């Protein structure tokens, strides 16, 4: 009843091709953004449950935002362009370490320490360049073979950041810590500040991603994904389409990596970006929904929340389980949930949401 498009006439093509053609959707998104940018800081300031809790901001919302951004990047490559990649962890690492190098300066080439914002973005740019290099095999190989080629990126960069001391500024332990997060004099320090800093990044890049995938370049990506031969015969160059997808995807993943290191971890070692991270991102986009920006957020939320949920609920219920049992149970439940979801809804949560919307449009009279 509330979710109706009746009476909403569109008189221009731009209105018809808007990101959210339905007024209700626009209102919902606006409300969500206001809540995220204004509501949560206010609630946190007045310590309203549960937002007064630092744990929620630091351990749930922050990783959720950053991994959502990474998942958007992975989704552009896998979901929109159809190029399977298992190297996302490596691209996060490149973003993180190069941002660190830019942030602490490179005296060898006479580059002074840059401020945080350009460092993070340049980290993304470096990641994009490497992404393009590792995307070149995609012009020749497809599917699982490409996945293996990108897996090589993962292992190579794991090794590189562990062994080549230049990247860690010759820190004896191999662990590095982020420079002070000073954005035009605003020192990003408190959890709520960190949250807002990441939120700004994520919202901006989510809009950019959405614009790209519904524009000409997005259509080229999807054309390559759905039928590459026909796309080629229509004048879409696979070279440009695939490599641009690799570049944009790696850029976003790289920025997410830099944020993960600088804002979430603070101090990190190469292990933070291992193959586990790549697989986690892959699961996020598959469960959230391939080829959907919304799905990236849903997938990230699901993958992050389930372990926390499984940790909290038994102890709240007063079931005396040892920590080991809990962590084993976590794996079992998590694994079976993924299997179940993939069988019941292979297109992920995003598909469920669009189905629900379709139903809701007719509710309560389904005719």
């Amino acid at each position: 009843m509330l979710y109706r498009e009746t009476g909403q006439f569109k008189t221009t093509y731009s209105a018809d091709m808007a990101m959210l053609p339905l007024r209700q959707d626009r209102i919902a998104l606006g409300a969500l953004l206001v809540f995220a940018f204004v509501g949560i800081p206010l609630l946190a300031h007045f310590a309203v449950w549960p937002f007064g809790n630092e744990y929620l901001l630091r351990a749930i919302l922050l990783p959720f935002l950053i991994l959502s951004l990474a998942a958007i990047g992975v989704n552009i490559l896998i979901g929109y362009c159809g190029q399977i990649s298992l190297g996302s962890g490596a691209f996060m690492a490149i973003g993180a370490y190069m941002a660190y190098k830019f942030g602490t300066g490179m005296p060898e080439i006479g580059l002074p320490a840059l401020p945080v914002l350009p460092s993070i973005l340049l980290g993304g740019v470096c990641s994009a360049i490497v992404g393009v290099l590792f995307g070149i095999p995609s012009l020749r190989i497809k599917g699982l073979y490409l996945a293996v080629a990108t897996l090589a990126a993962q292992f190579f960069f794991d090794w590189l950041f562990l062994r080549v001391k230049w990247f860690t500024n010759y820190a004896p332990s191999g662990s590095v810590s982020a420079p002070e997060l000073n954005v035009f004099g605003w020192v990003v320090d408190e959890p709520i500040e960190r949250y807002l800093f990441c939120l700004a990044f994520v919202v901006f890049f989510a809009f950019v991603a959405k614009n790209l995938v519904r524009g000409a370049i997005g259509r080229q990506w999807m054309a390559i994904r759905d039928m590459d031969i026909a796309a080629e015969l229509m004048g879409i160059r696979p070279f440009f389409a695939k490599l641009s997808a690799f570049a944009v995807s790696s850029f976003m993943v790289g920025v997410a990596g830099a944020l993960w290191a600088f804002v979430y971890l603070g101090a990190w070692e190469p292990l933070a970006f291992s193959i586990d991270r790549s697989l986690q991102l892959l699961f996020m986009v598959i469960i959230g929904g391939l080829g959907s920006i919304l799905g990236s957020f849903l997938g990230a939320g699901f993958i992050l929340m389930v372990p926390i949920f499984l940790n909290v609920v038994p102890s709240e219920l007063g079931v005396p389980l040892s920590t080991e049992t809990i962590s084993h149970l976590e794996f079992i439940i998590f694994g079976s949930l993924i299997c179940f979801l993939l069988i019941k809804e292979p297109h992920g949560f995003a598909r469920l949401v669009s189905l629900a919307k379709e139903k809701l449009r007719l509710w309560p009279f389904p005719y």
Partner: protein
Amino acid sequence: MSSNTVMPVAPAAGSTAASTQPAEASGLAVAAARAAGGAGSREDRARRTGEVILSVENVSLSFGGVRAISDVSFDIRKGEIRAIIGPNGAGKTSMLNVINGFYFPQQGVITFKGEKRREMRPYFAASSGISRTFQNVALFKGMSTLDNMMAGRTLKMQRGILWQALRFGPAVNEEMRHREVVEKLIDFLEIQHIRKVPVGKLPYGLQKRVELGRALAMEPELLLLDEPMAGMNLEEKEDMSRFIITINQHLGTTIALIEHDMGVVMDLSDRVVVLEYGRKIADGTPDQVKADPKVIDAYLGVSH
């Protein structure tokens, strides 16, 4: 497209049926005119069709030991409908693949708009004005009808990735300009009601129509149609024939057509080339080809 098939800008998604009529009317008028004209109109057309736009000279193509095409030559004149027929496996589709740069012939030269070439990437074929449809529908199944046809406009879209990322100013204007062109085609093909439907969900006949629309969105000079009527019922064939005639006469698009329905081929085409086992066995007007004993042998068999 002629002035009467060009719609006033449709008031976008919501309205579907409202704007179909003029396109339909013009299409029917064309079919009627053609039916009435009979042989006379064909002679008119012979005068109208211009210089050679594409010529294929001594082309041979083989895959390993299999000779798909051997020493075939023919030409296509500007503005005509040229049919390529032949039994299964005669090399018709391979010929189209050679023309639009997907296969490289081992021998022979192809001249398109005065440019000679042996090897050509599909991208250059597409950008010089050749577009095609496929025997087995090759649409982008995950995308909507509109997006499929907009993808056909790729070569005409100039704005860089940064403009698109912000979707601001020139990028939006460009998008809207191309949307208008695509909407006119959607009206012409009478597929307004499936604008936003993912093409994977459409029935076969409509998919064929969307594919034709995608090829037309490229505004080709030479349109290659690979069995546009395969698997269609009579009514759908009539619709498709009507579209082909309108495209040819009103847009002036040169058409190369592969089709197995002889009724359609003989009615639509100006000249027919017949292939068998990769060789050309006949070339001429439908009447000449129909009377050619080699063609009759190829289709009906010979007693030994």
